[in-house]
């Protein structure tokens, strides 16, 4: 179980998170959504250890992750797919995914992994993870670098960005498979309705706080009807503007 308790964070005099509380049970798929700038990516980075909270705790299976660095958290079973993937001169796709897996993947394993994100082994295993890859291609490799780790907690920051429809559908099936097997806890940051629709729970983040959250079947109609993903909401989760 992941428990985020009273997490606050200020950067360059801007209060980005204001006491975030959230509990994610094992094997659940949570989607964090909400307006841009609300603090979703910062929460994800807090979980991965890329940022550290000023106050609060992030507890995974009873252990507070806050004192741990990103390496230690990765070894505890936390994986994170960056919103803007990093490029490496000299690394091939195979090199990066071998590092992610912590071992040398067989051709068969690599073929299956790349297929999950809509890429072919023949075309991509030997490609350099550099500026010659398109935004969509590097994004899919980033997602693969998390999937291959088979971690108990996987965090994906806007996995849909830059991905074509066919690959997106494939990715949805991958996430659904993980959810159905309850083999890992998934936290996905997204604005995409299809991703929201496969969640166990939806969490609306706005203004550095959890505005509201609940089961997807109950929350999704409300969120879509009121365009909560794009429109500002107040601290209670109420819409601000003419639709209020």
């Amino acid at each position, binding site marked *: 179980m992941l428990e985020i308790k009273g997490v606050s964070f200020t950067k360059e005099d801007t209060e980005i998170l204001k006491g975030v509380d959230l509990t994610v049970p094992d094997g659940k798929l949570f989607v964090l959504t909400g307006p841009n700038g609300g603090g979703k990516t910062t929460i994800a980075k807090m979980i991965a250890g890329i940022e550290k909270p000023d106050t609060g705790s992030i507890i995974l299976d009873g252990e507070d992750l806050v004192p741990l660095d990103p*390496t230690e958290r990765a070894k505890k079973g936390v994986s994170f797919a960056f919103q803007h993937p990093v490029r490496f001169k000299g690394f091939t796709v195979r090199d990066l995914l071998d590092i992610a897996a912590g071992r040398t993947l067989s051709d068969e394993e690599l073929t299956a992994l790349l297929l999950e994100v809509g890429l072919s082994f023949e075309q991509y295993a030997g490609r350099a993870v550099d500026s010659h890859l398109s935004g969509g291609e590097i994004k899919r490799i980033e997602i693969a670098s998390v999937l291959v780790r088979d971690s108990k907690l996987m965090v994906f920051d806007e996995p849909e960005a830059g991905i074509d429809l066919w690959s997106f559908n494939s990715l949805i099936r991958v996430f659904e498979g993980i959810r159905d097997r309850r083999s890992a806890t998934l936290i996905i940051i997204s604005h995409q309705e299809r991703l929201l629709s496969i969640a166990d729970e939806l969490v609306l983040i706005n203004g550095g706080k959890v505005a509201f959250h609940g089961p997807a079947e109950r929350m999704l109609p409300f969120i879509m009807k009121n365009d909560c993903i794009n429109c500002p909401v107040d601290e209670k989760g109420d819409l601000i503007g003419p639709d209020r």
Partner: protein
Amino acid sequence: MDRIDSKTAGLLRTVADFDPEKFMGAFNIRSNCMSIGRRSTENIKIETKTDAPGLDINIAPGTKGEEVFIPACVTKAGVDDLVYNDFFVGEGADVTVIAGCGIHTETGEPARHSGVHRFFLEKGARVLYVEKHVGTGNEAAKKVIDPQTECYLHEDAYLEMDTSQLGGVSSSVRHTSARLAARAVLVIRERLLTDGNDRAETYFTVTLDGEDSGVNLMSRSVARGDSYQAYQSEIIGNCRCSGHSECDAILSENGRVDASPKLSANSQDAALIHEAAIGKIAGEQIMKLRTLGLTEEEAEAAIIDGFLK
């Protein structure tokens, strides 16, 4: 062949992955200024120069798929070796030349090797030239390797140079020049790692004289410790031709790099490009690998290994 001592054998394996007991092709092994083993084949004749220390390597026209090993080793302090090797590659030949130099010293005295290699590629000849430099032994001893390479490519010739110097060499000054005739192509890949107080200078000059000739010059280097590197390249396009040079360097600790690329287009149809990037390892690269379970040190090592691979 003379008996090869263990130090020389070790260097041969490192610089050229060469085992004289198993290799059946043409070779010459130079150790401490002397040839200690040589074999010619039907198609590749290796002969001692009469006017200077070194070799003439004659590769017959049409020779295909053969390798020739020309490694040099220095295993004694105080040695200052200078050698001139000329490669005459016949029309339509397609061969691999594996050179390289290793210096091993156990005392604090300096040792040096300077190899002057000239390549004459006849029409349609293709050569892969692999050259690796290493220094081992007493770290306090100055180990100097100063290679010079001149390349003359006739019509449709192709030369690929793969050079690496990945540690242990205190000082090196590399000069490489080439002239290309019509449709000839030159590809150069240089990989360089300096550390401590090492110093490495690289100078490339490529002249594109023939229509549709082309050069692709790629240099990747890492400067660690207090080391210093200088990189200068000049591509001169005298006709319709294409030239591309790329210089990427990673700085670590107090490493320093000067890069001076130069393009000279003497024809409106010369298409010349240069790309250069120098900087430390991006923090986001380190962070990505840390989220995959590597420590900061492991991440840096993996990035450098990949970069120089």
